[in-house]
């Protein structure tokens, strides 16, 4: 690894043969055998509903979107699909990745992966669609549970933070998502009200009072359109898609792609993630200090080197990774035990 000094490392699938040999085996026999089920959420995909930044930029305000996304997906993957080992990683710049590492997830076929991804996609449509969320009656339990998550963040994030109903230009966008019958009345109401929060209340009240067949879920649909995670389905679908390895350095920002501690998700701050230069200087400092403190003490050089990361700000992140691996290891051992038990029975 050190000899090659790679610019970046991507992780793909486990293949039936060594990839370097893929030209020498019969065509068709070189096949991807298994890969973690991965999800890639990118802030760029939220551009039409963010006011603070656009394209590759992020800030603390819009990071909430990622928090919401992770909460919703993590719950669904765990409860609906029963996946135990979900590993969330900050990509280094503007998004997050999720690696689902259960054995059953690794063995999913392409069709199965795309079905999972589509089950999880709610916001649909490209540049040519205005209304990207359409709920049907009855509301599926998955959607209901997702809305509960969104509700927790919606006021603080969308109404206060993004201020989506701040002025006419912005609320027009929201009104366009509502049935035509209520638009005019709300237009007037909105002008009178003073803040986004107030306007949102008016909107909900108005929808509530009218007996709407079509727009019964309009408020919920707006919430989802503004906050629901937007997946890159194609990344999850392919068994042979590549994804950047955790702990690699993002080429543009220099930030390390670090694991996210799910128990402290709300505290995660992408701007506090160490960059490569920070770590280098930390390492330099450590070495200088050590040399000053204990010159010439015969500690074995090798041992010290392997633990270098523990002296940098990367340490807590590595710990998260190790905990994840431990759990994975345990469940694997459990499965093996189970298997051998079964064998003895026969």
């Amino acid at each position, binding site marked *: 690894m050190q000899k090659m000094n790679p610019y970046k490392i991507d992780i793909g699938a486990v293949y039936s043969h060594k990839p370097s040999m893929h030209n020498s085996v019969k065509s068709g026999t070189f096949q991807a055998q298994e890969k973690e089920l991965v999800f890639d959420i990118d802030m*760029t995909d939220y551009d039409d509903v963010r006011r603070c930044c656009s394209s590759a930029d992020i800030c603390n305000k819009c990071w909430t979107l990622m928090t919401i996304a992770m909460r919703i997906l993590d719950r669904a993957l765990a409860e*609906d699909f029963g996946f135990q080992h979900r590993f969330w990683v900050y990509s280094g710049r503007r998004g997050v990745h999720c690696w689902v590492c259960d054995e059953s997830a690794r063995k999913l076929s392409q069709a199965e992966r795309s079905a999972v991804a589509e089950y999880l996609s709610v916001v649909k*449509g*490209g540049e040519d669609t205005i209304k990207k969320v359409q709920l049907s009656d009855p*509301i599926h339990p*998955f959607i209901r549970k997702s809305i509960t998550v969104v509700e927790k963040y919606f006021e603080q994030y969308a109404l206060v933070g993004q201020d989506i109903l701040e002025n006419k230009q912005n609320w027009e966008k929201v009104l366009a998502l509502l049935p035509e019958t209520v638009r005019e009345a709300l237009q007037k109401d909105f002008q009178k009200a003073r803040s986004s929060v107030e306007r949102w209340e008016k909107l909900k009240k108005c929808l509530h009072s009218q007996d709407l067949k079509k727009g019964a879920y309009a408020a919920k649909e707006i919430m989802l359109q503004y906050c629901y995670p937007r997946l890159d389905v194609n990344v999850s679908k392919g068994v042979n898609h590549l994804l950047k390895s955790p702990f690699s350095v993002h080429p543009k920002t220099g930030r390390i792609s670090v694991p996210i501690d799910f128990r402290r998700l709300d505290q995660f701050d992408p701007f506090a993630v160490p960059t490569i230069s920070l770590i280098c200087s930390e390492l330099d400092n450590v070495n200088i200090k050590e040399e000053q403190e204990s010159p010439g003490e015969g500690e074995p050089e090798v041992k010290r080197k392997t633990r270098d990361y523990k002296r940098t700000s990367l340490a807590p992140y590595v710990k998260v990774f190790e905990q994840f691996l431990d759990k994975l290891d345990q469940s694997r051992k459990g499965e093996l035990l189970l298997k051998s038990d079964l064998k003895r029975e026969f």
Partner: protein
Amino acid sequence: MQFSRGRNLKLNPRLTGDRKGEHYPFSLQFYQVPPTENISLSEFETFAIERLKILKSIENLGVSYVKGSVEYNTKLENELRKLKFPYRPPQNDISDDVYDERRKDHISHFILRLAYCQSEDLRRWFIQQEMDLFRFRFNQLPRQKVQEFLKYSGLEYLAISEDEKKQHHDDLLNSTYGLSSTKLEELDFYKVRFQDALDLVRPRKVFLLQGFAYIPHTDIVTLILNEFRTRLSKALALSARSLPVVQSDERLQPLLSHLSHSYVGQDFSSQRNTGKISLDQIDALSAKSFPLCMRQLHKSLREHHHLRHGGRMQYGLFLKGIGLTLEQALQFWRLEFTKGKVDSEKFDKGYAYSIRHNYGKEGKRTDYTPYSCMKIIVSNPPSQGDYHGCPFRHSDPELLKQKLQSFKVSSTGINQILDLVKGMHYQLACQKYFELTHNVDDCGFSLNHPNQYFIESQKLLTGGQEIKKEQTSGESSQSNPQSQITSSSSSALMNTQSEDMEDLEQFFNEY
């Protein structure tokens, strides 16, 4: 299947009542056991053609009607009756006629397996049509027959207990469309791995918990179809492996390859157009002869000097289909991309590979074919920042209307198009758009490919010069008997569907 040495040995076994029931107890089957009897070549041919006919009409019906609707069902039933295929279980005992129908169904299925196992594309088409046929027949079965059939096929599912049902009462109720609380009480639910019910998982039509899907009895057809597909696709893969043995039989080889050629008729990857178009023509062509989806992609490319992956694939392969050479394609994309944020070096590193890949010059070295309407409509829907997809399927009606207005389509025309869109007839809507923009009353073809749209449009606009060329090339190769098969299938390109089938029959007659 065995083919006897005697060519015209006609063996038509008449069996007694009991045996008949044993052979084919149901109007549908999983086609697990291949037929072992001897059949004559002429029967082989008729069976094959008739099955192909039925599969083709299934495909056409699926485009023009909503699958499972009353119209769809009656039309399909008529087709099946006309061609003497089994469609619904008879009231009384299995008569000779019924037996013949079922035998034909059985044998013809296996013949087409041989013809359609050769490539990924053919297999996909075959599986799709066979599944639609199976679904139709399964839905015709009366309730008690369903249980019998499942038992016969070795597919039994265990219903969940009442307690479990009560526990998830609300969730079950909310995940199934049009289910009332009382109905829920009566209904059996089956708990299966979610992988076995993908068609229900995908559109979120089933309750999921801990990786298990809870399937109501009413949706059991999904499970069965899934099973049908898995078995069929495995069987096709197996057939493909043993195909060389069958192909070495010189009586069957031409038959089989001709059968598979006649599927959808057209292959737009063919190289016959290459080099006919120069880059500076594209702007003009895009306004005149591109279908809406491609026109939209072209416009967005010119505006943003960039297209995301889905757009590059859909548009790039279309351009390849209308005749851009690899060199032209590289030049075209480079010119446009370097006007935007991408510099020449980045283009070579990031984008040139995939263009060469499309032309079969990299990686797997497959010569990729342009996307069909079906593929564009069904797979990979556009998301944020994407301009690909089918504008009739993936645009809001309001935006579609504006777009059509800007292209100066009359308001009555727009309304007609929007009505078709509402009825989910996206291809018919596109066809209407063709008729309106080309000022013809009836375009005279059924549209299923963007490149077909282009060819037809050019044909109209250039006054049929294309056809003449096509015919002469067809005639010239007639003299060479070796290439007869390929030439007759390529001359069928311009024919409509029904003529295509006649063509096929003619081929067999001559043979």
